[in-house]
């Protein structure tokens, strides 16, 4: 139980970090994230079930495509409302999400789909705990992506520029950073992470065009829990949420699992908007 919660947390972290990156750089809440996850799940479904691709390579193939999609979305749509109040960008991306959903309904119909591969039911045992290979690989791919991203953000010019823009946009502009380029790249990376998470989720969960809404909310919960701009925070937040969900299945009812995470989102937003970091700070310095 705990192990599977940890494995799920890796996936949640991948999904949430995309949100956090976009929010950090642009102060935009990206509701289209859910649409991207859903689309990626469908693309993965086609590639794996119809074209027989290796399920664990597919996410890596999909991510670059969605990176381009994200860059274009930012350049031609989101960029236009950058100066407007933040709520209009939220509504705009909400509209984009609705469009994406509808396209999926048209192309794939509303049926629930699931990807089953030869790995789906495979498990192995470590000291009495059975672990699904599927989930383990999903976890590894997710975490690997985060590690690569961390190196990118820490050691390349673009990575540093992204972090600088997240800290202070105006000052970055003054320092000669092309912030528009930076925002496009950040949006692209965020979208790519969403697609990565979406295609990995397709291996674990069943999905339909409405897929992604509950995961999006969980993503918000994690991001707020973890504080907005740190990767370790996001990883911790993902862990807390995954554990809370696992425990809610144990103590309450399985049907209320999502209820717990949504309630957690609202409570966390209200009680500690600074996330766990703030809580820890408060505990250390009374």
């Amino acid at each position, binding site marked *: 139980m705990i192990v599977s919660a940890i494995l799920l947390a890796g996936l949640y972290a991948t999904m949430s970090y995309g949100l956090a990156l976009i929010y950090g750089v642009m102060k935009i809440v990206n509701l289209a994230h859910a649409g991207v996850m859903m689309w990626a799940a469908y693309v993965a479904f086609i590639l794996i079930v119809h074209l027989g691709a290796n399920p664990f390579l597919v996410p890596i193939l999909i991510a670059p495509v969605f990176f381009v999609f994200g860059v274009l979305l930012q350049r031609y749509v989101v960029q236009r409302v950058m100066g407007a109040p933040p709520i209009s960008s*939220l509504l705009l991306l909400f509209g984009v999400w609705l469009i994406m959903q*509808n396209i999926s309904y048209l192309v794939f119909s509303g049926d629930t789909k699931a990807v089953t591969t030869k790995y789906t039911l495979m498990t192995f045992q470590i000291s009495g705990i059975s672990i699904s290979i599927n989930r383990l690989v999903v976890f590894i791919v997710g975490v690997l992506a985060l590690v690569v991203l961390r190196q990118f953000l820490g050691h390349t010019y673009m990575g540093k520029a992204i972090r600088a823009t997240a800290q202070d946009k105006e000052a970055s502009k003054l320092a000669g950073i092309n912030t528009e380029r930076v925002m496009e790249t950040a949006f692209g990376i965020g979208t790519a992470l969403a697609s990565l998470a979406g295609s990995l989720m397709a291996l674990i969960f069943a999905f339909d065009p409405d897929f992604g809404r509950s995961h999006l*909310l969980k993503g918000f919960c994690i991001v707020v829990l973890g504080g907005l701009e740190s990767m370790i925070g996001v990883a911790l937040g993902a862990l807390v949420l995954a554990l809370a969900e696992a425990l809610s299945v144990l103590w309450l*009812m399985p*049907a*209320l699992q999502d209820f717990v995470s*949504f309630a957690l*989102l609202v409570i966390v*937003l209200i009680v500690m908007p600074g996330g766990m970091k703030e809580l820890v700070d408060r505990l250390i310095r009374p």
Partner: protein
Amino acid sequence: MRVKEMSRSWKLWVGGPVLAFLVLIPFLELQGGYLQTLGFLTFLYITMSTAWNILGGYAGQTSFGHATFYGLGAYTTCILTLRGIPALLTIPVAGMIASLYGLLWGYPCLRLRGQYFAIATIGVGEATRLLMLNLDDLIKNNSLLKGFLQKGVLTGGATGLMLPTPPDIQAYATAFYYGVMGLMFFALFVSWRVKNGKFGLGLFAINMDMDAAETVGVNTTRYKILALMLSAFLVGISGSIYAQYVFYIDPQTVFGFPMSIAMVLMPIIGGIGTLIGPVLGAVFYIVVQDRILTANLNLGLIKLSLSSLHLLVYGGLLVLIILFEPKGLLGVHHRFNIWWNKRKRRSLAATEKA
């Protein structure tokens, strides 16, 4: 001055017959009561759109959780009616319970700003829906709350609740048609009073700049909560009337996310933060829903059922409105007026020259 008089008489000339037509619809029995049902839905949605606009438009707090009020209103009415309380009496109770629920989640959530509030409301909406879906099972396991169940049922879980149908369904429907029409006018009156009163001024100030509003002495938290409760009251009543009109409710319809989306979309399409905008938006929404859900497009080779396109229409419209005309249909109308006047002036100048 003369222009203003002319425009007023113009409005009277159009508005009068339209109103008369709306009043007469039940007597005309056009298309077997189809228009009457359409009218009922339109009035209901105008009420909700106007109600959402009080918080979302005037005060600028975008709520994606208004379906909670709609659903709560509907469930309150069903639960009380099934326990023998006259249905009409349950309407104000439904409004009040929705309003109290608004206080319950609004008090903490409204301290969040802008985008955070919007996200929190999505969370509240989904959490409420899931809770209602599973409430019966939860209560069954609790010895203290067991007394609320009637034959083992309170909310009916996913299957929902059913009300008994009255004997004369035609007269019943007609009564509700006028009832909801009255409700719509009541909502518009409330919205108008809010907009032109001190309360509305405070809400507009919050919308423009919350910190500045606070500095000038607006009790922002209290204003926002009052706006939410007022809005919730109207939406709760709408839900109650809906439940009595269709006799059947379940959590997915009345608490569903699409319901919340509808309430966000209508005022934005029509013109957010105005009195007439939400009305236009709701009419547009219903007409699109009604036409699109029934139409089939025949493009030679491909037959396209338009019912599968409604999200595309709303989403596309939302994107276009945010990108190009944040004031919605009213803004388009305004632009058209400017263009029209310019043209008239130009042609006037041309004739004078000649």
